[in-house]
């Protein structure tokens, strides 16, 4: 085999598994070996139970040996789960199994927490036969763009260990880039899947809001949060999305709408599609190497037969301000549950008030405190209309502009991140500079649309991502465009220099 096992796609590995040229146990051991080798250097995983993982792989091998693998593309494929998804391992009768891993959300306030139930994402992937390798490091409560806000230390980018892997799903992106996991799940509230995918040369997708259940995903901003996959090809992302998507009665914002066969829709053909390029996304502050790679990507799609159209989304530059009112406001409400009474850290004070304030003061990190303060301020008496209602009105405008443009084009092409991976520590003291990393991704969350980041080249030796944004519920077209581009460009095959044994 030319490529190390852990660097191959799910599609290739699935064939080897079904042909019994490879066992899930061998593949899982290869991932566990990579994880152990890189644990100190990359800091991607927060919780691992290798014995339980190997047992699950053996079970998948038994299913394959019985000839029951039909139609289950993720059977026996090892994956990593962002530590924002609660995990518990249960058998069919609801009894505990070994391997129910702790869940921290990257925070001290949840250190040692063990969920009494599994997240829908964990459950659906278990039902699909995928093998959970462990929980990945992330920015605390998914708040950040560099993974430096984790209480358990930063993750390093396998492309260059002096740089960040992006955030908040930085452990998941780095794990896939480094060949530790065949795919991983992240969450995306303002870009937390697409931006780290861009910075690590992986494919990452945020589905339409309501497409994938949020049950068991620790809430940051409930009207923006969405779960999605990282993988090493668009086809792999399509397979994982297929396993995750669909209505879940336990999530009241999960929408009951048909789920197409995403992988079957990847025709490689974009002829006749109209693709819009919004001029406002090529902003001041964008690195020239990033702009060049993204423009090359757009040209590639033109050569493939797509019609490229100049479009305008004039409220794009209002996205950042809108997001930094709505997201912190929702976060301040969601994080009120961490009170030191029912679970997590408790300051052990004698009086209730003090126990609340000191538990939260000791348990939350600097960025989470900043967002709680900002959100509480925006919701407080006297400021509610000026900040919160105003932001919701601008949200209406941003969404209406997307709807209008997407009524004339089939999808939108844009950069994912204005920069390549930046140095660890470069932006930690300047919250506003950090927030600008998500300028090209957060409008998509504000409008609730699906978006994907696919590798489109290197700038200064570091990966650049091309973003494809689609109509609500039309992940199929987003995936089709990204897949056609990927086949023509081939950048997804580039591996970080440190990944090789």
């Amino acid at each position: 085999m030319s490529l190390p096992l852990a660097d191959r796609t799910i599609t290739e590995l699935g064939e080897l598994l079904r042909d019994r040229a490879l066992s899930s146990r061998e593949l899982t051991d290869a991932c566990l070996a990579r994880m152990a080798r890189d644990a100190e250097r990359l800091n991607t995983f927060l919780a691992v139970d290798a014995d339980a993982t190997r047992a699950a792989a053996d079970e998948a091998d038994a299913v394959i040996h019985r000839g029951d693998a039909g139609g289950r593309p993720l059977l026996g494929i090892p994956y990593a789960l962002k530590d924002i998804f609660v995990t518990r391992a249960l058998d069919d009768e609801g009894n505990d199994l070994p391997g129910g891993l702790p869940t921290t959300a990257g925070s001290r306030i949840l250190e040692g927490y063990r969920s009494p139930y599994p997240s829908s994402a964990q459950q659906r992937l278990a039902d699909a036969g995928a093998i959970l390798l462990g929980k990945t490091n992330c920015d605390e409560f998914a708040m950040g763009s560099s993974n430096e806000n984790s209480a358990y230390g930063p993750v390093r980018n396998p492309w260059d260990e002096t740089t960040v892997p992006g955030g908040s799903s930085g452990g998941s992106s780095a794990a896939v880039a480094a060949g530790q996991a065949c795919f991983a799940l992240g969450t995306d509230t303002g870009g937390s899947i697409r931006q780290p995918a861009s910075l690590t040369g992986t494919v990452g997708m945020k589905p339409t809001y309501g497409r994938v259940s949020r049950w068991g995903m620790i809430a940051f901003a409930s009207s923006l949060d969405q779960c999605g996959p990282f993988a090493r090809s668009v086809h792999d992302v399509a397979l994982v999305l297929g396993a995750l998507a669909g209505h879940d009665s336990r999530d009241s914002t999960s929408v009951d709408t048909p789920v197409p066969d995403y992988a079957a829709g990847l025709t490689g053909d974009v002829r006749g599609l109209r693709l819009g390029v919004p001029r406002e996304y090529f902003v001041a502050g964008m690195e020239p190497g990033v702009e060049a790679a993204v423009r090359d990507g757009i040209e590639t799609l033109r050569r493939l037969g797509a019609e490229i159209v100049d479009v305008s989304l004039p409220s794009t530059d209002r996205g950042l301000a809108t997001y930094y009112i709505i997201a912190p406001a929702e976060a301040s409400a969601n994080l009120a549950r961490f009170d030191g009474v029912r679970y997590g850290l408790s300051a052990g004070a004698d009086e209730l008030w003090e126990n609340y304030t000191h538990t939260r003061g000791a348990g939350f990190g600097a960025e989470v405190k900043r967002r709680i303060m900002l959100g509480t301020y925006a919701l407080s008496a006297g400021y509610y209309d000026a900040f919160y209602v105003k932001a919701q009105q601008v949200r209406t405008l941003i969404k209406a502009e997307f709807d209008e443009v997407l009524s004339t084009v089939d999808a939108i092409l844009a950069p994912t991140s204005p920069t390549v991976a930046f140095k660890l520590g470069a932006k930690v003291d300047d919250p506003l500079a950090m927030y600008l990393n998500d300028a090209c991704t957060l409008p998509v969350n504000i409008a609730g649309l699906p978006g994907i980041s696919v590798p489109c080249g290197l700038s200064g030796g570091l990966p650049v991502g091309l973003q494809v944004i689609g109509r609500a519920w039309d992940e199929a077209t987003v995936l089709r465009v990204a897949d056609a581009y990927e086949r023509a460009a081939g950048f997804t095959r580039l591996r970080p220099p440190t990944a090789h044994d």
Partner: protein
Amino acid sequence: MATISRDDVEHVARLARLHLTDAEIDRMQSQLSNILEAIETLQQVDTSHVGPTASVIQLENVMREDAVRPGLTRDAALANAPRRDDPFLRVPTVLREGR
């Protein structure tokens, strides 16, 4: 409007039930002022004829049969409690005589 005072920071921290050290209050005052200055640019947008969007999807009440289903057991619900006094959660004193 963009600059917020130390008192403002302390007031908001009380609303958020968040203890901040003096150094944190100082830092928060300057950082929040900078962020609010950037956010206030929204005031320039004309929204006089625009309604607010709280969610991008139309939410409707969903009814299901009123049937008993298994839920969390009491033990499972209490398993992560920092302080418990079975079958209850234990909390510090809420009310005190004379207060």
